[in-house]
């Protein structure tokens, strides 16, 4: 049991600059760090639960947070969920056995949520190498394809606002307009966008916004957000109608799609709450993050063979590089594909997936210019040490 001793529970990235693609937006704010111990026990938020649902709590003010978050996203109301995946599942559970159109860069949980709800899925193709863009107009084409095959337009259209593979920022506004024209409900997965950049559902004509607290709202996992409008909230947040046939018990306030009372009872919701003012502020500085991202691309591409794939210019801090030169080194290196991971770690940089050299993803959100420079210098230094040319 010694392996579980606190002395042995050290985080591998401790003390290093972490550029792991999924980590940057979930790093806690100082405010969230201050409340960690006080709210760390299991059901810590449930000390004064009077209404039987976490989203209705007044102390701590989860009910108010729920409304503030909804307004921040330009929506009417919201619920906290066990991650963005749960939020997607909750939406689709209200459209079981229906049809879903989604972009071909969607996260696997978009597919599995549909599968679990017996939905028929139609993909919107992407442009392929090297941009992998999702053309909004293809949503209209896919809607027509769905009508040809099923006799009616789809129930839902899901767009991954920023995809996890290339960090492309999709044109949600245009997709929203197309959905409105076709009267198809628009689900926007903002796991990599809301919380770091401005997202407004009214402007984008969304029926549902799905968000990830631990990915982009500086919160402890697992927590997601499902925001919607009052027109649809009754359908998605429908309450239990069941009655025990012997006991007569009923659970009239429990919302089915979030398991009655959403499982975010302690640090997940409390860190999201403590970080929320900081999140509201930080989205105003998104342009600076883009400036840093584009600088980072320029510097990385000074290394021979390193090239950004995905859309150009870069509109997000999550990026995907291909690096045939690093891959060639890995093929001959004693540590094979792990050499880049180890070399970066030696230089204080963590987060490029171990084993990846031919292409790798990084996220530089929230890094200071100084840290960003350290990351670039680390990559360049490794390249030079292995005889790969680096431009001045």
């Amino acid at each position, binding site marked *: 049991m010694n392996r579980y001793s606190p002395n042995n529970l050290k985080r591998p990235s401790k003390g290093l600059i972490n550029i792991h693609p999924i980590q940057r937006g979930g790093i806690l704010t100082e405010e969230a760090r201050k409340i960690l111990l006080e709210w760390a026990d299991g059901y810590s938020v449930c000390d004064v639960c009077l209404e039987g649902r976490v989203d209705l709590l007044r102390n701590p003010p989860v009910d108010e947070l729920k409304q503030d978050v909804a307004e921040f996203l330009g929506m009417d109301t919201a619920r906290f969920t066990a991650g963005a995946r749960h939020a997607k599942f909750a939406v689709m559970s209200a459209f079981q056995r229906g049809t879903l159109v989604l972009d071909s860069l969607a996260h696997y949980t978009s597919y599995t949520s549909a599968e679990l709800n017996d939905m028929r899925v139609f993909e919107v193709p992407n442009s*392929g*190498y090297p941009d992998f863009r999702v053309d909004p107009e293809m949503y209209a084409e896919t809607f027509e394809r769905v009508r040809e095959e099923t006799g009616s337009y789809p129930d839902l259209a899901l767009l991954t606002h920023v995809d996890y593979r290339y960090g492309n920022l999709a044109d949600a506004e245009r997709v929203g307009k197309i959905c409105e024209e076709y009267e198809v409900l628009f689900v926007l997965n903002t796991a990599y966008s809301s919380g770091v950049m401005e997202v407004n559902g009214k402007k984008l004509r969304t029926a549902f916004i799905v968000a990830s607290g631990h990915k982009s709202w500086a919160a402890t996992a697992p927590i997601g957000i499902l925001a919607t409008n009052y027109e649809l909230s009754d359908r998605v947040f429908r309450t239990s109608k069941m009655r025990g046939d012997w006991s007569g018990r009923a659970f009239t306030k429990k919302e089915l799609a979030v398991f009655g009372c959403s499982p975010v009872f302690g640090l997940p919701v409390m860190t999201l709450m403590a970080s929320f003012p900081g999140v509201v502020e930080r989205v105003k500085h998104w342009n600076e993050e883009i400036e840093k991202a584009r600088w980072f691309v320029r510097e990385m591409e000074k290394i021979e063979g390193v090239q950004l794939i995905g859309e150009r210019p870069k509109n997000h801090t999550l990026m995907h590089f291909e690096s*045939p030169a690093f*891959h060639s080194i890995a093929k001959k290196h004693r540590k094979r594909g792990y050499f880049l991971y180890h070399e970066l770690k030696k230089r204080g940089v963590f987060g490029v997936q171990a084993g990846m050299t031919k292409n790798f993803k990084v996220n530089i959100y929230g890094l200071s210019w100084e840290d960003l420079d350290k990351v670039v210098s680390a990559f360049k230094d490794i390249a030079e040490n292995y005889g790969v040319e680096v431009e001045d």
Partner: protein
Amino acid sequence: MTFRRYFEIQLDPVAVIFKKEELEGTGEYRFCEAVRRVAETGERIVLNEFNLTCAGALVSLGFITETAEEGETRSIIIEPYRKQKCDVVLVVTNPERIMRISSFYRALFDEELHARFSGENAVCGEATALVRVEGKPNISFLCPGAREIGGYRREEIVIGFPYEMFARMEEAIKREEIKALCGCLMDDLPRDLIEKFEAMGFDKATDHFMGFYNGKSVKLYIFKGDRNTLGIFTSVKFKSEDEATNAAESYTGDCIAIPRENWVEMTRVVELDVFEEYRKPDFQERIGREIDTVIEEARKLRMSVRA
């Protein structure tokens, strides 16, 4: 973490040790029967010429030759594998587990598992003697004797490993050398199509293939649709976005020049259906010619700016 636990195999792996001296036998068994029994109960069984009750096994395991002369083997110890030095390790399991083992094996040794079987002298010959002689693992689908008398279940088959290979696999398991990936499949390209491009020097990336062709970084991408055409890409870097845009706009060759900030992506879409054509003998040569064209056009584009 042991082999058994890693692959979640119900029965113990069995160590088989050949001896040139005669040891006292334990009970009376067919070889296959003894192996199954040891795998299930964990007991130790010693077989010699006299308590081994299967004539086929006597020959295949080397107790006697095909001409009924005395062979080199005088005894065989069959016991649960506990990292002891032995000749062969036998694993009794089902096809689903063999599938997982074969995937691990390929990742570790960079070669496929092969099965040579004939339904005769199976556990003794195919999974043990053959493995010992050739130093390669083998999968046996058993023989009627094993199925009817040996106590094997309908879904069970046997894989035999040379000791060194089995020990190496256990070491790799312990050191977590072979990582399980997420299990998501990012495409549905046929394996032999991927191998075809690999043979040309390209590696599969998430969505496309990349590699060096005649020293130039080249990418291949299959545009799926009614026809599954092949896009060939190579990139030319310029000093500025303006320079790249001007170069792309003034380009008049056989490719498509797409400016992307300070890069131009030199592209050619080969009008063939990759899925229908890739097994044809001249596929590689045809694609090679197309790649040469793209590389040459990229070179011209770069030179046009220098000029």
